[in-house]
């Protein structure tokens, strides 16, 4: 039998029994597309969250006051002893380290903000000019906090877009005086909409110089210090030196926690990878169901076609030829179903991306390969197995059906 004839024969038998072919393609493409969409969803979520972390800044070391450890004696709090505060002096000591590219102290608190007769409760961040660069933020209008001695309180503020809208409405905000608690701050800049890190909406922040924040909240303690290393390689060394520097300043006591962005990221990444595998597992189940569907349709199809096999034998078809005929059919069906499934899955991920633009849903390569592999394998195996059995029958028995 010629290759062209074989292909034509198989294609004709697919085209001329459209119901069966449609069901097979449906089963196959649903299985494949389910895997593609579900793993794409998990993968998209993972990438979204990793992206969020990356926007917090790379090569970042975060210094937190207090010591978190699971070994050793009773926590300091229970002993009635509070950890020492992180201070601006600590921050200044850290900036003198040659491994540090830049660092920013951070104070966070809530305060009532008022302009005219409008008032609302907002989150106030006290920091220095470096904060903008470390956090990759941008100023829409005006400018960010001016550089200078961090221990000098200057009554200026940079406000988020949403705050501007809510308190100033259509009025000019730049140059106006915003009331925070019992102090007044001149608005010198408005934050751009870019940047929304880990649930903190930059559009709802008011940023003031750190010394002003200390005065406003009446506390010398920093919330944390963000330190950006010069290079990725120097980070472990830098962490060590930060601990030592602060310990020296705190009477030899190591009472801070130093974490890297990467460590936090890695933890999340692991969790999210597990999530992808979970959705992938759900996809695999749907693929298995599709496989069983394919198997059933193929079994029914072959038992319907036993007479045809008998006839082909009667007019001289050899056993190998019969297997080849059914194999070609199954290959065509499997590849068509696979391609259709990928297409459907791709449309599905596009739809998800359309509904949630933040989610870049893209199925990982291994999931696509597994989906295609399993569906074509079931298609092939269950296409050929019953056909082989029918081909082994005596022609006269097959003819009777």
């Amino acid at each position, binding site marked *: *039998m*010629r290759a*062209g*004839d074989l292909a034509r*024969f198989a294609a*004709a*038998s697919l085209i*001329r*029994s459209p119901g069966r072919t449609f069901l097979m393609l449906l089963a196959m493409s649903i299985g494949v597309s389910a895997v593609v969409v579900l793993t794409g969803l998990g993968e998209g979520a993972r990438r979204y969250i990793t992206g969020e972390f990356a926007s917090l800044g790379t090569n970042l070391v975060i210094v937190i006051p207090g010591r978190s450890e699971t070994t050793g004696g009773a926590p300091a709090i229970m002993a009635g002893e509070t950890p020492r505060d992180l201070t601006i002096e600590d921050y200044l000591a850290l900036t003198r380290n040659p491994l540090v590219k830049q660092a920013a102290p951070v104070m966070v608190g809530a305060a009532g903000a008022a302009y005219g007769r409008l008032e609302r409760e907002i989150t106030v961040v006290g920091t220095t000019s470096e904060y903008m660069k470390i956090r990759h933020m941008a100023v829409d209008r005006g400018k960010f906090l001016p550089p200078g001695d961090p221990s000098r309180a200057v009554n200026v503020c940079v406000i988020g877009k949403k705050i501007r809208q809510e308190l100033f409405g259509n009025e000019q905000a730049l140059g106006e005086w915003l009331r925070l608690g019992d102090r007044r701050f001149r608005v010198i800049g408005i934050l751009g909409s870019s940047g929304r890190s880990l649930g903190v909406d930059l559009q709802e922040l008011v940023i003031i110089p750190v010394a002003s924040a200390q005065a406003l909240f009446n506390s010398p303690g920093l919330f944390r210090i963000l330190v950006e290393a010069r290079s990725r390689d120097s980070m472990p060394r830098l962490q060590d030196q930060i601990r030592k520097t602060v310990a020296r300043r705190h009477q030899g006591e190591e009472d801070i926690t130093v974490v890297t962005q990467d460590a936090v990221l890695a933890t999340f990444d692991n969790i999210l990878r597990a999530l992808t595998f979970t959705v992938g597992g759900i996809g695999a189940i749907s693929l298995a169901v599709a496989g069983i569907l394919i198997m059933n349709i193929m079994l029914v199809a072959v038992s319907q076609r036993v*007479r*045809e096999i*008998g*006839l*082909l*034998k*009667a*007019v*001289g*078809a*050899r*056993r*190998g*030829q019969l297997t080849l005929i059914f194999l070609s059919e199954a290959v065509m069906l499997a590849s068509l179903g696979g391609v259709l499934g990928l297409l459907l899955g791709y449309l599905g991920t596009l739809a998800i991306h359309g509904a949630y633009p933040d989610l870049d849903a893209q199925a990982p390569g291994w999931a696509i390969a597994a989906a295609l592999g399993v569906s074509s394998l079931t298609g092939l195996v269950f296409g050929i197995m019953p056909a082989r059995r029918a081909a082994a029958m*005596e*022609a*006269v028995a097959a*003819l009777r059906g």
Partner: protein
Amino acid sequence: MIILEGINRIFQVGDQQVHALDDIHLTIQPGEYLSLMGPSGSGKSTLLNILGLLDKPTSGRYVLEDREVTSLSDDEQARVRGERIGFVFQFFHLVPRMSAFENVELPLVLAGVPPAQRRERVGKILEQLDLTDRAHHRPDQLSGGQCQRIAIARATIMHPSLLLADEPTGNLDSKSGADVVQVLEQLNAGGITLVVVTHDAEVGKRARRRLRMVDGRIVEDEAG
């Protein structure tokens, strides 16, 4: 020439053994026209299936054109079926999704004959059987008589030496039946060995040699 020696065919039905063919000895000369008659269950169809290599005898020897075919492998038997034997069935056994042309072409496709040659051979045989205008109809668009003639075209497209017909008129009205018998006899006149299994005494009588079977044995063998 066909020689059958001591052919037995035993079916196992439940725990009972049915002796469908009981020690058959038969010699058929090339170009003979033979009819096989007998009551239902007498083994005439079984004999025909064994002659056509569609079924295997339980024991005995079958020589077709100086070749012992009982001991051939499956694939070798398939080749003999394809090239030397044509089969016509009571229920036509056309592939329903294929056109008349494609059904006739099927043995040529399986044998790997190039398309141009196929078109010519199928066209010629359809013309001989007056079916040219039906070439692209599917079996469900054809009458029974037309279907059977398509089946005959398919059975003879490979120029076999032996044509076996199992109740070829059994499913047709008398006029179509007569047409089909005429076609078969024309082919026999062209030199092909023709064996017809039939219930119809009228059809059976026309053969030059008439066999009668009862309970798996040949009880009558008359010629002329």
